[in-house]
């Protein structure tokens, strides 16, 4: 069995831990320097509605306005029907949502109008239909805190489930290691959003939850092998069991990662080529989460567990 080990995962654990910590530190310092970008859904902002003479390309307007304002802008086009049924009048409104903590200043509002005019959008500036409103976050604190609560509660339940199912691995240490690996993946994804200045929105919550489900899968498959091998290889030491288990499951881990990456990278390429921002952010974060999830499962979770166990052993023998 030991001849199967071509790479010692346990012995090199310090390298793996260091790599993760180093990357997370880079993300942390970027966060301190740059801060995070929040989408309008998270923090509210200003909504301007401007009438247009004819149909306009809302996506193009968003790109131009983001450059001008240096703020996150969402746009959409509305067809308004006003007046009574006989004399219904149709008008086209460009709706501009700007994410900002404070309402737009008159200067900034002017800048929006100027930018649209200069870029040749057929806006009707004096129209009585035009208006400016401030928008409360639609994903309010409530949704966000509920989302976080959901993550917290699922982590606790996962912890309990793993502790119960893997009691042979002295449950609690296995469960805590798995959850630490999960937190690692979440932080990595948060970091990518900060580093690439992708605005946080509801899609991000979805992406991070996907990766929680994905990464815990990977970890459990390896634990499952450790559990099985612990019964078969009773004479071997723990380090060997961990190494053999990671190695035996490696082709499965790699292949599942490959198929998942095939899917999300395809999505990312299609989104990039066609310039669909919302899918780009989503698929990019999934690519990162997928890689981080595999990394943490193979190099971190079981290693943490083994580290914890061997420390306990030491304190027991010395005490």
């Amino acid at each position: 069995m030991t001849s199967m080990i071509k790479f010692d995962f346990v012995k090199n654990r310090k390298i793996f831990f260091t790599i993760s910590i180093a990357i997370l530190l880079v993300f942390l310092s970027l966060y301190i320097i740059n801060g995070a970008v929040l989408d309008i859904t998270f923090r509210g902002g200003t909504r301007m509605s401007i009438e247009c003479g004819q149909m306009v390309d809302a996506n193009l307007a968003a790109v131009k306005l983001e450059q001008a304002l240096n703020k996150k802008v969402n746009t959409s086009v509305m067809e308004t029907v006003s007046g009574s049924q006989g004399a219904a009048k149709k008008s086209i409104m460009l709706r501009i949502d700007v994410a900002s903590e404070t309402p737009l200043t008159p200067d900034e509002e002017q800048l929006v109008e100027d930018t649209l005019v200069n870029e040749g959008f057929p806006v009707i500036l004096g129209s009585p239909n035009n208006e400016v409103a401030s928008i409360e976050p639609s994903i309010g604190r409530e949704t966000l805190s509920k989302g976080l609560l959901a993550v917290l509660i699922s982590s606790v339940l996962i912890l309990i489930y793993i502790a119960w199912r893997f009691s042979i691995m002295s449950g609690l240490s296995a469960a805590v290691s798995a959850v630490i690996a999960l937190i690692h993946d979440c932080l990595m994804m948060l970091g990518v959003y900060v580093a690439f200045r992708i605005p946080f929105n509801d899609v991000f919550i979805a992406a991070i939850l996907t990766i929680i489900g994905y990464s815990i899968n990977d970890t459990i498959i390896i634990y499952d092998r450790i559990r099985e091998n612990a019964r078969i290889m009773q004479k071997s030491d723990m380090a060997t069991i961990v190494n053999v288990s990671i190695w035996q499951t490696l082709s499965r881990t790699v292949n599942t990662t490959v198929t998942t990456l095939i899917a999300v990278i395809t999505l990312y390429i299609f989104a990039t080529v066609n310039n669909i921002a919302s899918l780009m952010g989503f698929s990019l974060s999934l690519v990162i989460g997928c890689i981080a999830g595999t990394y943490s499962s193979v190099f971190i979770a079981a290693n943490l567990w083994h580290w914890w166990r061997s420390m306990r052993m030491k304190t027991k023998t010395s005490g």
Partner: protein
Amino acid sequence: MKDSRAFKFFAMLAFIALLCYLAFFGLGPENSRIIKGANEIRTGIDIRGGISAIMIPDYPEGTQGRDVAEDLASARSIMELRLDAQGIFDKNINVDATNNRIIIDIPWAQNETRFDPREALDELGSTGRLTFREVSDADAMLPLNQIPATGAIILDGEDIKTASQSQHPQTGYYNVDLELKDSGVDKFAEATGRLVGHHIGIFIDDECISAPYVRTTINTSKFFIEGDFSLEEAKALADKIRFGALPVPLKPVSVDAISAQLGQGALDVAVRAGIVAFALVCLFMILYYRLPGLLASIALSALVALQILFLANTGISVTLPGIGGIILSMGMGVDANVIIFERIKEELREGKTLRASIETGFKRAFVAIMDSNITTIIVAVVLYILGTGPVKGFGVTLGLGVILSFITAVSITKALTRNITAFGFARKKKNYGVREGGADA
């Protein structure tokens, strides 16, 4: 023996082909589908656009001392919950704090293609529409939430002036006092006269909130519902009757069509990405796992077909990230198969026969697949219970993907892998990615 395996194999293939056909084309005539297919999936607001309405609070005359901001905030969360209950997870409900109003964007209803403000208003107005309806004696025996809203309408929200609660001086329990407008008095007198000894159901949309028993003919504008209500229960019922569960009635001042933020083009891109991703995943599985890889690809098409069928027939609206999620699940969905095939390969390498390897492979892989899937299902269930809006919707698709991939792996892949051994070519170990005779033998 051999023949029965071959038969089972082809039966399974035929079943999967049927699933795929249904997923693409649906079943039944165009307008009244028995089973809905891919084209009838309700696409989200980002893909297809929808309706944007501005609603302002419409306080009854003489209302005083209400905190408008608070009322709007709670109206917003109630509307959110209601739309969630309808499977519409992709809506935006914004409170416009400057002008004290709510701006609500909801996707088109299923099969709606043309913009008709009147129809759109009806759809909006129907959230929280209060009706008093006849209820058959048999239906009145059912639990409240199962009583169907099918009986003739006696009164609707327009006929009711107000509702409040008061304490019964003798019993100490609370009553719900109602007052009708002139428009309702005659209708109610006629109906209660006819229905003495029967029940009348009070409905919000399709949900029955109370089904009082009619004791006597009521021909005055004021009457009450008597029951052993606590103060809270009576107040809640009175509030629901008064405002259709919203703290303040909302009046739409404008209803507009809103264009898709992303549009049909984006949908096409996502669908094309899905097809390419599906092909690439299958290609990888076939190249790496050979024959079992091919079987896994067939199982994967069953998985995707089942997902499409579920989404189309529940009316859950699918946004672009939702489609992204489906594409992701193609990659993740083969996982259970990968675990099983790796296990079969290991058993083959140890020199076991093909049949024994397949049996032990499935048996050993089962525990691992189950443990890993249950943890993901835990996440999905918690998200569904606690989340709102997109988070709740995501809980549905995540849970669905996991459960379906588990089911297809342990049923479809298993049936295919076992029964294909009826054919000579499928008994060569080389077709399983292992050298003939076993590596260690």
